[in-house]
């Protein structure tokens, strides 16, 4: 839901500025939102994630990641099926069955050991697979890197997210908070590497995001590199 409002606001709020990157016509606004997100990240998300990592042993963090990953697999499977990848989708749902039962509600990832590989799918990728172009690059408040297509996908992801149905509310917020903390903790190393590697963090992160999303749509087998200007179309078949 939030995603839609944000996109509408961004599109309405700004016109493209000068001769920037054609994939990123809203760079001015994006950079401002990026700075805002960065402040929140540095002062809230990172300290919480670091504290979590210090206090909670790695073994327990694996259980937490597996638990939320298991719920995620339900929707990863659904997205694979929507993309016509029935074998992958069946594999995802087999993961859910094995992990929910023998893996004790998902805290143990027994399915991976049985050879069912975990996939990475979401509605943004499904739209891309169906042929939707990425549209302009967007930085969503708090959610970070996205595009028009992926922002819409994110909206559907959030709308279908079972955690938002959990009641009472304090349990819902607790679970969502825990999942966010776990995710940020898992990304601490990656974000430090980004910090070190980038000359301009905004540009580096944008290009990495666009490259990665393009590859994900093709499940890691994108056609060979095309000129940057026309990169990240939807899947063409």
């Amino acid at each position, binding site marked *: 839901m939030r995603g839609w409002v944000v996109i509408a606001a961004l599109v309405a709020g700004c016109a493209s500025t000068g001769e920037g990157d054609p994939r990123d016509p809203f760079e001015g606004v994006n950079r401002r939102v990026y700075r805002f997100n960065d402040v929140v990240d540095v002062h809230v998300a990172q300290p919480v994630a670091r504290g979590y990592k210090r206090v909670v042993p790695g073994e327990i963090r*694996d259980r937490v990641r597996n638990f939320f990953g298991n719920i995620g697999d339900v929707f990863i499977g659904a997205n694979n099926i929507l993309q016509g990848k029935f074998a992958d989708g069946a594999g995802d749902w087999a993961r859910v069955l094995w992990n929910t039962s023998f893996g004790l509600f998902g805290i143990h*990832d027994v399915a991976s050991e049985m050879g069912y590989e975990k996939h990475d799918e979401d509605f943004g990728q499904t739209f891309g697979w169906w042929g939707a172009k990425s549209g302009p690059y967007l930085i969503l408040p708090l959610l970070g890197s996205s595009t028009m297509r992926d922002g819409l996908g994110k909206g559907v992801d959030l709308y279908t997210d079972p955690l938002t149905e959990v009641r009472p509310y304090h349990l819902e917020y607790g679970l969502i908070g825990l999942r966010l903390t776990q995710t940020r903790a898992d990304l601490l*190393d990656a974000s430090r590497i980004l910090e070190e*590697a980038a000359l*301009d963090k905004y540009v580096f992160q944008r290009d*990495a995001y666009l*490259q990665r999303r393009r590859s994900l749509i093709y499940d890691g087998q994108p056609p060979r590199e095309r000129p*940057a200007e026309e990169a990240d179309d939807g899947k063409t078949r």
Partner: protein
Amino acid sequence: MTARLASALLFVFAAAWGAPAPAQEGPDVLVKRVTLEVVDLISKDKEIKAGNRARLIELIDAKVLPHFNFASMSALAMGQSWNKANPEQKKRITEEFRTLLVRTYASALAAYSEQKFDFRPLRAKPADTDVTVQVRVLQPGAQPVPIDYSMEKTAAGWKVYDVMVGWVSLVANYRTEFNNLVREAGIDGLIKNLSDKNRALEARAPARR
């Protein structure tokens, strides 16, 4: 008797000299050997485990870097601007880019060194001179992180000219940054930017974890 021994020895020597380097190692074998060797050295080194970044970089310098072709990587990252640079500029760019990539690679390796690696079988014909070697870093409860090495065959063995981490090509990712800097400040501006970045990272290196 001795004559036969002598000729046998001679034959062995001739074979050894004549062979193009000691029976060239395949690219997938090379990646696997070097990765496992480095991960093993990291796990045994108390100082690196305690966060001695300089020592880790030293290790990577010695073990990993000889297998990278940094001139190729720099040229690819620069794109069309590469041809506009003079030899001195090319040399500086290659040096600074190398320093930056080593540090990035060291951080990535330190982050992943305790995970399990899955070395995928090489999908290439024996005659291929440009291949992709696929490695997967397995982590519990998450999709494996793919690390793909693009490698080319040279007279001095197989050399890496791009690394893709999480399906993001490092070389392609630097291309926009490099192009922006060259457009704004020229090739010397790019060199200055790279070198400032490296100096800044060096200055704060010992303090980090």
